[in-house]
Each structure stands twice: as C-alpha cells, then as structure tokens.
C-alpha cells in the first residue's frame, strides 16, 4: 500500500486552505467595499466562475496560463527557474482556484450579514478601520467564515479534475487521494481504491464534525 497520496493530499489541502482562507476573506472584504454596483457584480461573477464551471474547464484555463510555453508559465520558468505545470505546486494551484469561490462567497455572505449600523457606530465612536475590522466585523462574521473555510478545505482535499489537467497524475509527486482512487480503479485494483475511499470519507467526516462542534461553541458564546 502506497501512503504517499495521503501525505500529498494533506500537504496540498493544507497549503491550499492557507492561501484560500486569507485571500478569500481579503477579496470578499474588498469586493464588499466596491461602490459601483456593476463592477461589483462583474467581479463577483468572475470570482465565482471556478465553482460553477466543470473542474476540467478550470484546469484547461490553468494549463493555458501556466503551461510551459504559456505566458505565466514562461515567466516563472525564466525568472524563478520554476516549472509550475506538473509539479506539486500545481496541485496546490488547482486546489486554490477550485476552492477559492467557496471561501470567497461564504466570507462575503458573512460580512454582508453584519448589521452595517455596527460599522457606522464604530466609526462615529472614532474607532480605526483596523479596530472595526478585527474587533467588530470579524467576530460577527466568524461563524460564516469558519464554515466557509471548512468547506473550502474539504473541496480542496477532494479536487480531481483541474488537478489532473495542470498537475497530472505522477505517483509520489502529484498523485493526490482522488487521483490515486481513479488510478487504482483504472488498473482494476478495487481493494486498494476502497482503502483510499475509506480514508477520504473518514477524513471529510471528521472535518465536518469538527466544524459543527466549533459552530455550536460559537453560538453559545454569542448568546452571552
């Protein structure tokens, strides 16, 4: 039994959620602050696209941008001597792009739900934007943000289509759990695939269970 897919998946999902979590919150906050409604709607659509497109289409676009002979791919190769396509970094890239909309949408919804009068009250009391963000907005939005983070993490863990396109299926390097399951089934090893399936089911269940536990804790705090 090869344990490398488990390690690769955990590494990829962890690295991806680290980027997605903060980028999602930051971008959600930024988009919420846009005053022009049309621009806001357009940006929102573009940022949500990876969620509604088939992952292979997202993977196609990634390949189009980060392929060895493509503009961004060449840029990284020339200036950083770093080949993104078909490297471990590509699994992270795919997971980030696919899971980002979940984080972004959850964070935006969470921010929008916060009573805007609380923000105005903070401003009239002379609080800085920084204080308002960390001490008023974030605590109010936290339950929504945490659940968005968990959803994004599990989505990154389960990412298959875009990963296969941009990172390939290289054993010990880019073969994550979903790809390993596919490979084993393709080779007719149903038992080996089943082990991987159980691992991913248990992991996902644990994570969602933890999310519910944390959410319940937060609710009791909010009741004071």
């Amino acid at each position, binding site marked *: 039994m090869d344990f490398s897919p488990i390690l690769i998946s955990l590494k990829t999902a962890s690295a991806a959620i680290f980027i997605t979590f903060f980028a999602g919150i930051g971008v959600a906050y930024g988009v919420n602050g846009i005053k022009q409604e049309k621009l806001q709607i357009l940006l929102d659509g573009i940022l949500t696209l990876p969620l509604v497109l088939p992952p292979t289409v997202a993977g196609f676009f990634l390949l189009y941008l980060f392929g060895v002979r493509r503009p961004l791919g060449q840029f990284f190769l020339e200036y950083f001597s770093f080949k993104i396509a078909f490297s471990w970094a590509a699994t992270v890239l795919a997971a980030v792009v696919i899971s980002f909309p979940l984080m972004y949408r959850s964070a935006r919804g969470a921010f929008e739900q916060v*009573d805007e*009068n*609380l923000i*105005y*009250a*903070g*401003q*009239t*009391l*002379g*609080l*800085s934007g920084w*204080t308002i963000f960390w*001490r*008023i907005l974030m*605590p*109010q939005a936290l339950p929504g943000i945490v659940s968005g983070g968990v959803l994004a993490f599990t989505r990154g863990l389960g990412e298959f289509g875009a990963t296969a396109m941009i990172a390939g299926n290289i054993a010990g390097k880019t073969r994550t759990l979903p790809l390993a399951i596919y490979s084993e089934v393709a080779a007719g090893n149903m038992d080996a695939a089943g082990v991987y399936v159980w691992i991913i089911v248990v992991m996902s269940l644990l994570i969602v269970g933890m999310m519910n536990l944390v959410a319940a804790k937060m609710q009791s*705090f*909010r*009741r*004071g």
Partner: protein
Amino acid sequence: MGLYVDIEKKLKDFTLRVKFDTEGNNGITGILGASGCGKSMTLKSIAGIVTPDRGRIVLNGRVLYDSEKKIHVKVQGRKVGYLFQSYALFPNMTIRDNIEIAVEGSKTERRKTADRYLALMKIQELADSYPNRLSGGQQQRAALARILASKPEVLMLDEPFSALDAYLKEILQIELLDILKNYQGDILMVTHNRDEVYRFCDQIHILDRGQMVASGDTKAVFHNPQAVAAAKLTGCKNIVPAGRKSAHELFVPAWGITMMMEREIPEWLDHIGIRAHYLIPAAAGAAGNIISCRWEKVLEDPFEITAILDNGVWWKVSKEDWKSKYKEQLPECLKLPEESVLFLREEQERELSL
C-alpha cells in the same frame, strides 16, 4: 459655536435640502418628519456616513464638509455622537467592553472612564452582561454611556424611543431628559412623533419629502405651521383647500361654507386647517363660522372621544367634557373659533409655480 448644516443630496424619489444653524439655541433641536422624508439621511450626512452632493457642514467652528473647498472629514474625525435607532451595541462584547473600546488612553484610564459612565447611566450591575441580555431601555442607556464616553461635540438621537414599549417610554423619556440636561453641546433629535418633539425640543425643523417646510421655535411652529405638510406632521387633522375671496372672507368648498375672518387673510393662502380639539359644539344658527354636522363615526379611546363627520371633519373631546358638558350627545353644529384657524399653503405647489 453650534452646528451649521446646509446640504443637498439627490435621493431616489426626491432631493434632500436641509439648512439650519443651532447657534444661540441652548436646548434640543428637533427634526420632525414622516418615515422616509430624509431625516436619517440628514444625520448620516452630518456624521459623514453618507456624502451630500453639495453644501457645507460646520461643527463648533470646524469645517466637517465643504463641497466647494473639497473638504470631507472622515467619520472618525468628526466627533459626532450618533445614537442609532437600534442602539448598535457590539453584540460580541460586554457592556463594559462596548464602552471601553470608545475611550482612548491606558487600560486603567479606560476602565475608570467606563466606570464613570456606567455609574452615570445607573447600569453598573450590567457591566459584564452582553447586549442581547438587556432590555430596550437598558440598551439605550448603555449605548448612550458609550457615546458620551467618546466625548462627542454633538449628540444626534435617531428616533430614540421608537424601539421601546409604550408603557416604559414615558419613564425613559423623563430619565433621558435629565441626562441630556447635563450634556455640554448641541443635541439633535430626529423623530416622527409630534409629542416627542414638543416635549423635548426648543427648536424644530419640519421635513417633508426632503424639503424643510417649517422651522423655528417649537411652540410657534405648532401654533402656526403655515405649510400644509407641517400642519399635518404637527397633528392637525382637519386640513381642507380654501380660496381667498377678499381680505376677510374665504370660501371652503369641502364644507360648503364661506368664512369671515377678523384677521387679514394672506394672499398665498390655499388651505386652512383646524385641530380636532379646537372645534366647539354650537347650536344651529349660532354666531361665527359654523359647520352643521352629519355624524358618521364615533370612536372611543380611554380618555377621549373622536367623532368624524360625513365631510371628513374630525372632532376630539375629552371624555370628561363628553359626559358632563355634552351629556354624550353629538352637537348639531361645530364652531370654528377664529384664533384656532390655521392659514396654510401647499408648499410643493407654490415652489413649482415660482
């Protein structure tokens, strides 16, 4: 010193035009208007939460906003205390933290300041509670403590009593009045309730669809509102179109009568009004201006009787008078005492014709 506001802002259905100055006014300034008339927008413009299209706002000599000089002080720098209708206490903080966050200085200083304002508002025992554990009145006091602790130069109250239970309202009004008496600085209060402005405010401005239709000393404005919209908002129930026939004669088509006035009737008059309490029962053929009555509806309140005529005239009388003076009988006629007749004009139309 004082608050000077002269702003204009285009809103969805109308343009908000507000201009006033609290200089020389020691008491509370009120803005009376129906919901959606632009009252809250005015407060938000003063606070800097929204930006007017043009105009100027000056607080105690500091220019907060000037469209021509492109001055727009940030909300944080305006020192404007804003009591929100919903009080806007931060739900994730205790009352003490809600107050301390608004205070500058070291931890011990902030603690001391918070203690002082908790005591001033008599809510010391609630210091460690979260806002959602408090009643409406307690939340209001906590919010006020927080605002006063931040040392604002003007206090703005947005419908301060609308979220409170009716039976608590009056007690809380009296308490609030006591607290506000000691506040050094201008107080601006916005409400749709004529009793509240009358009770609290020395100066009022009446706002109707973004336009200031009446301004001045509260009692004077209530006594002579001049504009139809202002008369309505101050609670005048009987307002009808009227035509000036001569300097002392006017015709009221809705009531089918010609009224004689000792006062000179202004040329701009196009409506008259009379408050429902000021009509006096009279016998048919009595002297003075009289309308004969065909009664349509009688409504009974705890302390008052309201009778409505078929031509839409409202008459209100206290229950005591109703029983002892009128023996629960509806009069044949109602007299319109000259001194109670309001000369009014429809402000909007007059503006269009200009």
